[in-house]
């Protein structure tokens, strides 16, 4: 069984409460169609569980097969450095079929960010080391393609579909209850 080797930390991009019962970590690639497919599913899963669930996104761009994946990840980090990570994240996935340099610039401008600054950040690979670090942490944790999910630190090998994810998270929630009962 593969386990998350890099614990979730404050530097991670996360949605939800730190003390949520379940943390769902996704290693994803902005140009991967399966990640694009999973994006609205993750949102629905988050909505379903509310504050019981925390969601964390980490970069795993497969640059050899996805020419825009790295720039997209860098653009999301660029926006993230200015407090707009999730807006950029959503914008990229929602417009995945037309992912390009132009789209990234458009999205940045839409968030009130400077497209010149974005260009400079992409050309200087300002955020690349963070992305590489996400990637290597993922490799060490047994990420075996995109998207790869970890539920409370354990790799989830099921389908990236709503019902399957909900079921796996429910299992964690009921497991948590049993443990607490034992502790009490």
């Amino acid at each position: 069984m593969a386990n998350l080797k890099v614990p979730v930390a404050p530097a991670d991009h996360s949605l939800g409460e730190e003390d949520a019962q379940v943390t769902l970590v996704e290693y994803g690639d902005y140009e991967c169609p399966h990640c694009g497919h999973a994006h609205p599913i993750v949102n629905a899963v988050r909505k379903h569980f509310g504050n019981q669930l925390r969601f964390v996104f980490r970069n795993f761009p497969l640059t050899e097969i996805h020419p825009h994946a790295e720039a997209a990840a860098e653009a999301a980090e660029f926006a993230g450095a200015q407090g707009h990570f999730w807006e950029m994240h959503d914008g990229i996935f929602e417009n995945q079929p037309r992912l390009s340099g132009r789209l990234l610039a458009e999205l940045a401008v839409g968030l009130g960010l400077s497209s010149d600054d974005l260009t400079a950040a992409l050309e200087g690979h300002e955020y690349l080391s963070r992305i590489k670090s996400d990637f290597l942490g993922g490799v060490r944790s047994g990420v075996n393609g995109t998207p790869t999910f970890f539920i409370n630190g354990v790799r989830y090998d099921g389908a990236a579909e709503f019902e399957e994810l909900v079921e796996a998270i429910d299992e964690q929630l009921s497991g948590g209850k049993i443990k607490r009962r034992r502790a009490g």
Partner: protein
Amino acid sequence: MAHILAPGTTAPDFTLPVTPDQSLSLRDLRGQPVVLAFYPADWSPVCGDQMALYNEIHPEFQKYKAEVVGISVDGVWCHAAFAHDRHLHFPLLADFEPKGAVAKAYGVYREKEGVCERALFVIDEEGVIFWSYCSPIAVNPGADGILEALENLKERRQSHGQLESSRRAS
């Protein structure tokens, strides 16, 4: 059912075609760690399949001076098209004729389907299997096990080196 060769076993040598007019022998790679990645077939319909993943991680493998080779029962032309499409930076060997002979020698052939298992071997500098792992056929084994084995192999080499130099010093 055949069993996957265990650590400590000498890795069976083989010579397999790597392109339509070139072949590769395991013994040619002696002196460096070798990662043998058996997989069922080219063209599996997912992003970031096993070979694409190893391709992305290739620079990490190179840090350990490890040579990675993929092996399946697909023929050389199929491998050539697949490697070109996925921009692979490491060789794919064709265990094509006699079909699956190398996979059988390593105990990782699936007779029923006629394909290789998803099986990984890390072979040390002397040609001895240092680590092996067979994954459920539907689960891409990722690269964490390989990297951990390469790290352990490096540590073993370093501690041997220290032993040697302390012997020489005394």
